[in-house]
């Protein structure tokens, strides 16, 4: 009769299904349910509506807790390195950010740091054209460190406000590729003290539990400080970012909601959680 709340089994299974199919993962799901049980009294835990409401609030508060805005004025040029595994939307996201910040009157320069994948520099060049910004690029097969160096130099020389450096997609399990990323970071640091001021890890909303491992390993390698969650215009919910907020304290800066230059939104925890439950 201690009044210890316990969500009833049927409701529990229903909530588990919602959270797990949203890719939160079992561990985070259990933590959230335990947190909800802690906050509710015995009789309250029997009210499905109330339980759901408290659960949403719990998720929103965890996301809000790690939320921190990206300060564009903290340095000039502000150097942003964009990293992530293959095909998640790094290059496209850079195109969108170039458009966003140019429309806000910022001078943006892009660095075509993917010198490995077929037509990667061409792809970024087209995005640069669309935003009306300079793109620093070398020939395919060139040293990505050299592109980083030139891009940093150019950003300073051209008095850019923001430098966005694209990098080749790479799996976090490939040690040599992660070393290459560290080298690129060191080159940026040497050229522009404090750079990169922001390291954005791009995650695909369709990815499951592996996104948590990606976040962990990229953070260990190159001090990721923000996330971009792409492809939220699909049916995947991207709930793994709740696990990432929980375990790694990383905030989502932006969400990608399509393939066009304007399909980018600042992250809104409330909207995100509401959409997850729909």
């Amino acid at each position, binding site marked *: 009769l201690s009044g210890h709340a316990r969500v009833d089994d049927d409701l529990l299974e229903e909530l*588990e*299904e919602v959270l*797990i*199919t*949203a*890719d939160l*993962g*079992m561990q985070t799901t259990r933590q959230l349910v335990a947190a909800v049980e802690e906050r509710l009294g015995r009789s309250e835990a029997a009210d499905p509506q109330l339980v759901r409401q408290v659960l949403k609030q719990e998720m929103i508060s965890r996301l809000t807790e790690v939320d921190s805005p990206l300060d564009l004025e903290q340095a000039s040029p502000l150097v942003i390195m964009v990293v992530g*595994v*293959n*095909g*998640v*939307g790094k290059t496209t996201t850079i*195109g969108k950010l170039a458009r966003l910040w140019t429309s806000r009157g910022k001078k943006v320069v892009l660095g075509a740091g993917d010198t*490995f*994948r*077929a*037509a990667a520099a*061409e*792809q970024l*060049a*087209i*995005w640069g054209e669309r935003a009306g910004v300079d793109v620093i690029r070398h020939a*395919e097969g060139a040293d990505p460190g050299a592109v980083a160096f030139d891009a940093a130099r150019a950003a300073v020389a051209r008095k850019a406000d923001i430098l966005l450096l694209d990098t080749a997609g790479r*799996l*976090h*399990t490939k040690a040599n590729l992660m070393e290459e990323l560290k080298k690129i970071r060191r080159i940026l640091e040497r050229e522009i003290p404090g750079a990169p001021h922001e390291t954005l890890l791009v995650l*695909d909303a*369709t*990815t*499951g*539990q*592996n*996104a948590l*491992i990606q976040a962990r390993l990229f953070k260990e390698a190159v001090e990721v400080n923000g996330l971009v969650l792409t*492809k939220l*215009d*699909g*049916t*995947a*919910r991207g709930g*793994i970012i709740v696990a990432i907020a929980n375990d790694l304290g990383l905030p989502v800066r932006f969400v990608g909601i399509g*393939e066009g230059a304007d399909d980018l939104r600042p992250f809104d925890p409330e909207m995100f959680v509401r959409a997850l439950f729909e």
Partner: protein
Amino acid sequence: NLTEKFDTVFKKLRGRGRLSEENIKDALREVRLVLLEADVNFRVVKDFIAAVRDRALGQDVLKSLTPAQQVIKIVREELARLMGEGEANTLDLAARPPVPVMLCGLQGAGKTTTCGKLALSLRRQKRNPLLVPADIYRPAAIEQLKTVGRQINVEVFDSQPGQDPVKICEAARAYAELNGFDTLILDTAGRLHIDSELMQELVRIRDSLEPREILFVADAMTGQDAVNVAESFNQVLDISGVILTKLDGDARGGAALSIRAVTGKPIKLVGMGEKLDALEVFHPDRMAQRILG
């Protein structure tokens, strides 16, 4: 891993004599957690556990001296069977040339790269493939396929961003007939399964080209959403098979089970790296092992 978890579950039983149904259910609860952690879809896991439970509650397990091993064996066998063990999973190219092979899937899954891998593998089998860039939307997509073609010395049909993808494929077929290419590898743009206009574009390409193979390309790290995507692509196109990419990573690949469960179609090939020779035949038993961790 699963063996350790089961040993923990069954260790409590040693000295208590016979195994009970409750013990088996505890073990199956562990299996459920393992599968969910591996990204197998929630409902697919439910169905799988129900299917395994009957065998697991059988006399040979309850009376066994090594019940943990028995349950694991059942789970592994069921999983491998579901993944398509014993099924033929080769590409069907038995048609009048040029045989069209169409690749489709979500954005970024690895279609363009896989088209290149396929072309190289077919060339090594003494076939004469033509790569067809039918993605007119993604910036430099056509250029990407052309670059890939140059790297492996396979011809790429010349298309332009303004053209209609169906017309591109039809023109490529005519070109292939005229010039003795025996296989057409159609690279299509990534698209959402909920984008009805773009899904209809795939239907039009399929209806006009009548591909021998319609291969759904899926990223091995896909999570719970795999069922929704695979089901839609299959319902709209009646895919002939699946290619799972980026298996060189450490994603457990539970999406493979979800995709199999919801489409019933064979997983034919797997992408094992970014290089164009990184394409392998799919092994159901190895996939089952990987999913179970």
